[in-house]
């Protein structure tokens, strides 16, 4: 995973995350003046724009935006910014499905896209962009993706080929308190699975989230060290 923050000039916070063949750029502007129809009397309103790497946003992006909104609006301390707007723009730059050769059906690529392979990267990139913009958050958060293959083994951060051959796939977002995963903020499991498998995936996700977050924490520590220059000269 490769991360760069503060990459854009005209917004308050931004982050660019490259993970395998997925590359996502997120910008955050806020708090800014909302349009009248967006304004909420006691909370910040949240505007999320998601733009795919190829073509224009359609219903898939619309649903992704909706999921993202429900996740972010529970984590941002919205009552800190009443009558204001926080604008999050997600630009997917490249995606594994972009390079898939269309051979048979018109809908093949569409069907592969709804695995939402970029979802956890978007979530994680949003986290860094929000940190970069200094928007108040209740808790840190991290997204993990897993799939369960036919032989019932769990694959962490599956690639497209793993997902195609999987029995079920699971997206989880955990909130983080004191560097440890605390609550499940979001879960989306699809395919065929038993109760036991679901709990195994949740336990495993919990572990992965903890492990991955130590890496995130180092990135954040480094960022703070680089950004703030009040250190005493040696």
């Amino acid at each position, binding site marked *: 995973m490769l991360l760069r923050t503060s990459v*854009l000039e*005209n917004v308050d916070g931004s982050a660019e995350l490259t993970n395998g063949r997925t590359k996502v*750029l997120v910008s955050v502007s806020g708090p800014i003046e909302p349009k009248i129809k967006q304004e909420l009397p006691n909370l910040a309103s949240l505007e999320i724009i998601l733009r795919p790497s190829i073509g224009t946003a359609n219903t898939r992006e619309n649903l992704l935006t909706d999921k993202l909104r429900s996740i972010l609006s529970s984590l941002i301390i919205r009552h800190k910014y009443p009558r204001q707007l926080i604008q999050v723009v997600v630009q997917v*730059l490249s995606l594994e499905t972009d390079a898939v050769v269309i051979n048979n059906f018109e809908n093949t690529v569409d069907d592969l896209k709804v695995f939402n392979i970029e979802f956890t990267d978007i979530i994680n990139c949003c986290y860094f962009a929000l940190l970069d913009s200094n928007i108040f958050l209740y808790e840190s958060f991290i997204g993990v993706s897993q799939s369960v293959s036919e032989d019932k083994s769990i694959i962490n951060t599956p690639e497209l080929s793993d997902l195609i051959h999987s029995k079920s796939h699971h997206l989880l977002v955990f909130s983080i308190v004191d560097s440890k995963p605390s609550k499940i903020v979001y879960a989306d499991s699809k395919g065929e699975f038993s109760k036991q498998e679901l709990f195994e995936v949740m336990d495993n996700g919990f572990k992965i989230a903890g492990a991955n977050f130590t890496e995130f924490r180092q990135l954040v520590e480094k960022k703070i060290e680089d950004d703030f220059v009040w250190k005493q000269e040696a």
Partner: protein
Amino acid sequence: MKSNDISINETKYIIESLKQGTRLDGRKLDEIRKPEVVLGDNGYVELGWGQTKVVIKTSSEIVKPFEDRPNEGLLVINNELSPMASIKFDERSVDEVMINRIIEKSIRKSNALDLEGLCIKTGEKVWLIRVDLSIINFDGNLIDSCCFGSIISLIHFKLPNYSLDTNGNIKVYNLDEKPPISLSVLHIPITLSISFFNPLNDEENLKSNNNYEISVFDATMKEELVRDSYLVVSVNSNKELIQLTKLGGIPIDSVELVNLCQRCYAYAEELTELIKTTVKRKEEEEFKRLNLRLLKSVDTR
């Protein structure tokens, strides 16, 4: 919140310095920012034009052609401004329409891409080539950067190889099964915009015989906010003029137009050369990488 407005003081400052032949970033009046091009996977280009940053991606799909043009492929150029680039792009703006129209004119309508070469089976299947532009940071001159980015992306893009069997079924090959094919780009249009500033008052400009307008190549965001009019010229390295757009604003000396076009030709040659060397270097890198992979696979046998 970061603002996109400009104060009266700043406006005056910019014009005064232009009168003396200097610009805020130290460039000469007729000097353009040197584009930085990073080529990624097939058709993926990250372009830095000063602080203006654009990501361009070309992709392909198989579609049915239009009935009145059964043997022509399609070229779609898609560009939407988002508030990521600048807060002022919150709503669909005139800029967006303007940029799209000029890219259309300079690339699609100038036949830069050979569309007949994209036909797979007349009346049934053709390639649709789509260029998606994402403007991620704005510091003026979107037109030049978007046109430049689109054409590099088209040159850098390779179409997957395919074969047709006797029943008309298509088999499309993965990139490693059969080497992909470059698009046939017939010429390389380079678009340049020139901004005009009126150092004196409006009356002076219209009535007197003197033409004092200052012409500036490749304006930054601040210069664009101050300018009085602009001209967009697309040319290619064969010294051909492809399109010319000037939408009102202050009038300019018509003789000056020829001089400006001369300057554009020089830039067209420079930028065309840059495109060619960048793409060539990338191809050599790819070739080396593939060659090494081949050698490796021989080695393991």
